[in-house]
């Protein structure tokens, strides 16, 4: 790079996506949170591997609620992505975006509700044994992330409705969408570990 190229350049201000800085900050957050789940899953698997009895003690957990719940969460990610893309195409008139966002929040809330029902139907309590505390901690930590994502999406929805994102260069919607996708991706792994793995092993 030499001086001549610099002199000819004009530059965007603030920048969006990977040209800005907020997107990179969000990647760091996602990386460190993802690894937190890795360590928690390690704990779960370690306790299982060292457990003298069967793991889970009562056989693999039922899929009756968990499978539809997983589909709901996946659907929410798809709807949100649809809203975001329509938003770009609509040149920010924003109906599709608002609809997509609201629908995602409803689906996310449904996930939390169904998870609550599943918890209340469990035959064991948090403090019973190592499986029960690992199960509730792993699903609970994920649920906490879903709630955090829902709060973020709701704030973004409120700002969208208030017309705070007119113009370009706002990163908040992009970051909230990215975070929501991450929360969903984590669930797929948690789901595979808790519900599917015992069926294979």
């Amino acid at each position: 790079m030499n001086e001549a190229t610099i002199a000819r350049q004009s530059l965007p201000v603030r920048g969006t996506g990977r040209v800005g800085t907020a997107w990179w900050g969000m990647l760091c957050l996602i990386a460190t949170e993802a690894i937190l789940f890795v360590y928690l899953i390690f704990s779960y698997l370690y306790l299982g591997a060292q457990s003298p009895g069967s793991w889970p003690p009562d056989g693999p957990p039922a899929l009756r609620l968990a499978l539809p719940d997983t589909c709901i969460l996946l659907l929410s990610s798809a709807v949100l992505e649809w809203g975001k893309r329509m938003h770009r195409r609509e040149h920010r008139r924003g109906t599709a975006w608002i609809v997509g966002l609201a629908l995602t929040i409803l689906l996310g809330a449904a996930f939390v509700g169904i998870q609550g029902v599943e918890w209340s139907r469990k035959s064991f309590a948090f403090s019973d044994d190592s499986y029960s505390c690992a199960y509730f901690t792993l699903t609970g930590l994920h649920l906490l992330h879903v709630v955090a994502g829902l709060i973020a999406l709701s704030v973004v929805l409120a700002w969208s409705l208030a017309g705070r994102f007119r113009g370009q260069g706002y990163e908040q919607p992009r970051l909230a969408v990215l975070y929501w996708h991450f929360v969903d991706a984590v669930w797929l792994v948690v789901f595979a570990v808790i519900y599917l793995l015992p069926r294979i092993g």
Partner: protein
Amino acid sequence: MATKAEHLPQAERAKLDRTWETAPGLFGWVGTVDHKVIGIRYLVTSFVFLLLGGIEALVIRIQLAQPDLHVLTPEQYNQLFSMHGVTMIFLYALPVLSGFSNYLWPLMLGARDMAFPRLNALSYWLFVCAGLFLYASFPFGAAPDGGWFNYVPNAARTYDPGPNIDIFALGLIFLGISTTVGSANFVVTLLRCRAPGMSVNRLPIIVWGTFTASVANLFAVPAVSLACAELWLDRNAGAHFFEVSGGGQPLLWQHLFWMFGHPWVYALVLPSMGIVSDALPTFCRRPLVGYTAVAIATVSTMIVGFGVWVHHMFATGIPVLALSYFSAASFVIAIPSAIAVFSWIATIWTGRPVFKVPFLYFSSFILMFVIGGVSGVMTASVALDWQLTDTYFVVAHLHYVLIGINLFPVLGGIHYWFPKMTGRMMDERLGKWAFWLVLIGFNLAFFPMHFTGLMGMPRRVYTYPAEMGVGGLNLTTTIGAFVLALGILLFLTNVARSLARGADAGPNPWDAPTLEWSVPSPPPPYNFGVIPLIASRHPLWEDRLEDIEDASVLERGFLLDEDRETLGVTPLDAEPDVILKMPGDTILPFALALSISLLFGGLFAKSIWLGGAGTLAVLVVLTLWFRPRAEPLQERPALYE
């Protein structure tokens, strides 16, 4: 060539000053986001913790000076050695390096601030709050007492029912937030906030070290936060992660703790090795030998460092195959370390050493590093480790590593950059006295400890019988500890004196090669009048080094004076691709740190109201933090010539 920053017209500099300077009064004091102020605060605060941890160590050494002493009760002794470890490792060793990096990074990289100035302030305030939290129960005689690695079941509710361990568990999670936030800031700063031309092959080594440590922290800190959360749940909610009666596994704690702990040890030394790699060449009057090798060694040390955690657990009954693997991996770490050592030696060997105080610290650091490294290789061998583990040999090893590789470069680094930070030189004569006291005191204290350990004295026991025959060695160690403390005291006296009446430094008193020395001392709030254009690793030595083709340009470049602005560049090649807007003074970071403190207070007191209020406050502050501001995207050229 020293006063390059002064070329900008007075009116232009005044405008930048108005834009960038911190507001006066209490608001500015609490709300500043200036990386230089935050960096110095980090340094000062971590030195306060160094003194606290040091005083604890001296009390411990009085107790151990002779056999069968009863200056301390066993309970007091447990709390003191635990808080000594927690303080030195968590509240001094990493924060002090964050201080250097916060202060130096933008100046070395050619930026006006870090990528996220508000996060920078947040990580500092969180560090202070977490430090206070960890010390909150100390005055009540209920400080953490399970050692810095806090093994279960000793730390379980059954054996330690008081608040001691809860403070440890919550405090470490709390501090982890600060570390994570700070690390993310370093990572993004390196990727995006540099001067044009400051490509990855031109970065100072301290930047490599801190970047590597920061990436590692992002991946390692969650392990200890999780372990602490699980322990807290075990103790307070009846969980069975470690509690054997319900199928829990005590060894799980050790795995999680050392998956964090070992990378963390490298996070404590890689940036300080970077300090030496950057500053030592200045006193050898030549560039560092083997820059690329040292940079690669830095990164590869950390990568291998993630695969050696079990060497802390050789005596726990792990399968032989695992022992062999982790032992071999631990031996491998010696290779990148040796590369760095040979580079430093070659730099001195082929240079023309100038025996100033920083050089004394840096060159003796190499010796301490080798001693600590060799005892490390010894303990990497499983057979020997079974004999040495839990004896004072390990204590000697870890102090050679941490004091030798962290404290020595830190003291040298403060001598080196003090003129940049304050505009004044530190006193050479006083500095030399302090150095010799530190060097002699340290070796007097810790070299005999190897023998104490070889003779079988177990660590973490409050006293020992006279028949063991280690009374003389222990007395020597105690005397050494006090000499070391005297040296530190003299060092601080030097700092205080030099602040008041040190000689005027000027921009580049050491005739050093890197970018931070091109700006006045202390640097103006905006760091650089124009963003420089970098063409080499040694922008200020270009006229005397033969192998450099392009010259760096420090007088012309992007002016960026519309508002608080700095340049964003592409991650690898550092080509400018965006103008970044920087936030001004704000109390949001301080408010967020207080809210999080409230939340942790609620967790500790198990109060729904306190915790709920904290959570609510966190959400409110975060919403304010991310609120959209009406600043449209625009394009414009901006060049000063």
